[in-house]
């Protein structure tokens, strides 16, 4: 890949010997760590909500919107995960997503909503197959092929749309039939009442649950299912083992009789299918029609979510969730919510700075001091204003992602042979 993660430290024998609670957290495996982090997050949200009175911070509506906005990003990211785990960088997710939006619209309007979903997957998979053909069979640089796919995807979808949705001028499709949504109304109402109670933590748990039982699209459930399923297939089955081996060391895989080309090809096609489904989600769940420009760069965001999530399903779900949440907050006019977040952010900065100062490591001093100063500044901002300027709320999703990344430890580990063009017979 032309874009590699510069390893900031030379790889040595990495013995995990971190201390304190971060060490304990690190020692938790996958989903358990996720659960702990999520609970922690909820407590922080709840505290912030109670202190600042910004109730939309975790209202069931905000959470439901976050889920709906996160789902297509998660699908794109999951597509990226499949392909990159098999060693093929997929910057063409956006193009495959666009193909998916058209596929969903065309098939749904002709053969019904479920066919629409399949159509989205199919069209995305076609895009994936082209990428696979170029990168796996012809050994083309993965970035170049991905860039070409983004052009092709956009071009093909617009061109096809003009041909297939003639009545509407070609920039959008007629409205599409809907897929079922799940509402457990009794439970939803009851939880709604608890949520309105605004009690610390209780209301927050209720609103999380309410978001899950109110007007939840079956496709959203499918997305969650696909995340889990992908994890299971890639990390728990022999198929997945082989697939990952193609991303880590294709020559090793080859010498053990694994048909590397085949696995890479399959992975990239699946990747395309998932990204296509992400497009389908946009066309059929998030809205009810195909529209040119509908994906709005979500393929790239999905890619970012996957890198954010360290090439793991849980991580990418967190990345997509973070993004979907901040997007939801912004779209819901969350000037007050964003303002409320200044409080925990300043507290976090203060703790971070204090910790850095306390450790007294050389060079950390300055970092610590600066953090504390910024923390004070942020707190002052929080205290002296009552709302975040509306014109700037639009940058929240992006800024939040950058800030989290800047503070999160960057122990990113991409598959070792990711982006490396593989040729058969090169084992030595």
């Amino acid at each position, binding site marked *: 890949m032309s874009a590699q993660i510069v390893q900031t430290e030379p790889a040595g024998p990495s013995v995990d010997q971190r201390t304190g609670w971060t060490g304990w957290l690190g020692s938790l495996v996958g989903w358990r760590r996720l659960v702990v982090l999520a609970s922690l997050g909820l407590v922080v949200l709840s505290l912030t909500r109670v202190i600042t009175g910004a109730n939309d911070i975790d209202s069931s*509506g*905000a959470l439901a919107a976050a889920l*709906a906005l996160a789902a297509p990003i998660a699908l794109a990211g999951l597509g990226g995960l499949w392909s990159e785990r098999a060693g093929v960088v997929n910057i063409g997710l956006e193009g495959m997503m666009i193909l998916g939006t058209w596929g969903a619209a065309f098939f749904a309007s002709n053969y019904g909503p479920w066919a629409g979903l399949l159509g989205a997957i199919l069209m995305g998979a076609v895009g994936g197959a082209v990428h696979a053909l170029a990168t796996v069979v012809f050994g083309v640089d993965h970035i170049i092929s991905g860039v070409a796919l983004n052009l092709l995807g956009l071009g093909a979808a617009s061109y096809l749309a003009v041909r297939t949705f003639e009545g*509407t001028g070609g*920039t959008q499709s007629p409205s599409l039939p809907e897929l079922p949504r799940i509402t457990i109304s009794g439970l939803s109402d009851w939880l709604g009442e608890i949520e309105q109670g605004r009690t610390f933590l209780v209301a927050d748990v209720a609103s999380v649950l309410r978001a899950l039982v109110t007007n939840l699209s079956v496709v959203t459930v499918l997305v969650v299912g696909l995340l889990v399923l992908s994890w299971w297939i890639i990390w728990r089955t022999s198929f997945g083992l082989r697939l990952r081996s193609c991303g880590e060391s294709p020559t090793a895989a080859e010498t053990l009789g694994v048909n590397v080309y085949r696995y890479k090809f399959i992975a990239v096609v699946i990747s395309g299918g998932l990204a296509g489904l992400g497009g389908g989600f946009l066309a059929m769940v998030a809205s009810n*029609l195909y529209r040119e*420009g509908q994906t*709005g760069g979500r393929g790239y965001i999905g890619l970012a979510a996957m890198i954010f999530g360290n090439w793991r399903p849980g991580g990418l779900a967190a990345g997509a969730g973070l993004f979907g949440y901040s997007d939801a907050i912004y779209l*819901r*006019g969350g000037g007050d919510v964003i303002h409320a977040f200044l409080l925990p952010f300043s507290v976090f900065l203060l703790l971070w700075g204090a910790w850095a100062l306390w450790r007294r490591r050389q060079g950390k001093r300055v970092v610590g001091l600066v953090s504390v100063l910024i923390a004070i500044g942020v707190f002052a901002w929080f205290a002296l204003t009552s709302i975040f300027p509306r014109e700037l709320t639009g940058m929240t999703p992006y800024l939040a992602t950058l800030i989290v990344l800047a503070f999160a430890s960057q122990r990113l580990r991409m598959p070792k042979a990711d982006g490396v063009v593989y040729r058969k017979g090169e084992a030595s």
Partner: protein
Amino acid sequence: ACGSDTPAATPGAGNTGTGGAPAAEQLKVGMAYDVGGRGDQSFNDAAAAGLDKAKAELNLDSKEAVAQNGEAESAREERLQQLIDAGYTNIVAVGFAYAQSVAKVAGENPDVKFALIDSTDAKGDNIENVTFAEHEGSFLVGAAAALKTKTNVIGFVGGVETPLIKKFEAGYIAGAKAVKSDIDIKVQYLTQPPDFSGFGDVAKGKAAAEGMYQANADIVYHAAGGSGGGVFQAAKAANKLAIGVDADQALTADAAVRDVILTSMIKKVDVGVYDFIKSIADDKFTAGEKSFDLEAGGVDYSTTGGKIDDIKAQLDDYKQKIISGEITVPTTP
């Protein structure tokens, strides 16, 4: 589907025109649409309706071309020039994005006549600037919202935060405040220029409107082009109301959501386009600004669905006050 989208303008349009006269020289009209083009169920469609009406009445040959997102200035120039080269010497440039290119191409082609919609930035002897008083129309639907709200909270969703859309917002707020000075108005824009995806991102429109409804708003007005579909969906899901824009959306929107549309702020781009073509056919073209305001019937509110029949009198009262100049509607919020 587009044929049925022609709003408001069709009544009276029969075959009474000069369609049959073979002797008359064919009028050649080139349409350069904004992004979205014919079929966007909104702004461009309204312009297309004007063309269609003229076609039905006049001996007309037309050519249409549409802009792409994020295109170069030169692409717009080239589009206009291509139309001229192909012999279409009466050009309708739909949307303010064409201002610069119209100025340039009009200068180079003094014999070609231009109608530039929504902009007064390009002036010339052969340019008619067709503008609309969106703020005045928006004032009326703002007043309607304020009169109809039960929660005293209403909303506005703008597609992209441009001065044009802010004009809608300003009028809406003024109208609502004129009725109830203490009314709470939520305002949200979906994207910032040059990211114009806010006019086509239904998902975002939906999320924004949802937020407003959940924050107790019961009526949301949108000036968000295609994203407005999401606003209607959210209204439907929340069992609340929405206000359409540009066309009478209770007629043009997706059938499933038409019943949530309280009223629409109609911007009669079709009339503007039709008038331009007609003026050329009649050899009465005049350059300069042609403002389609409330008085000229260029903007209005719609009554389809009968949801505002009870307040029609009050709205018409406001209308008269605006026309008479008693009320001056601001153009910026």
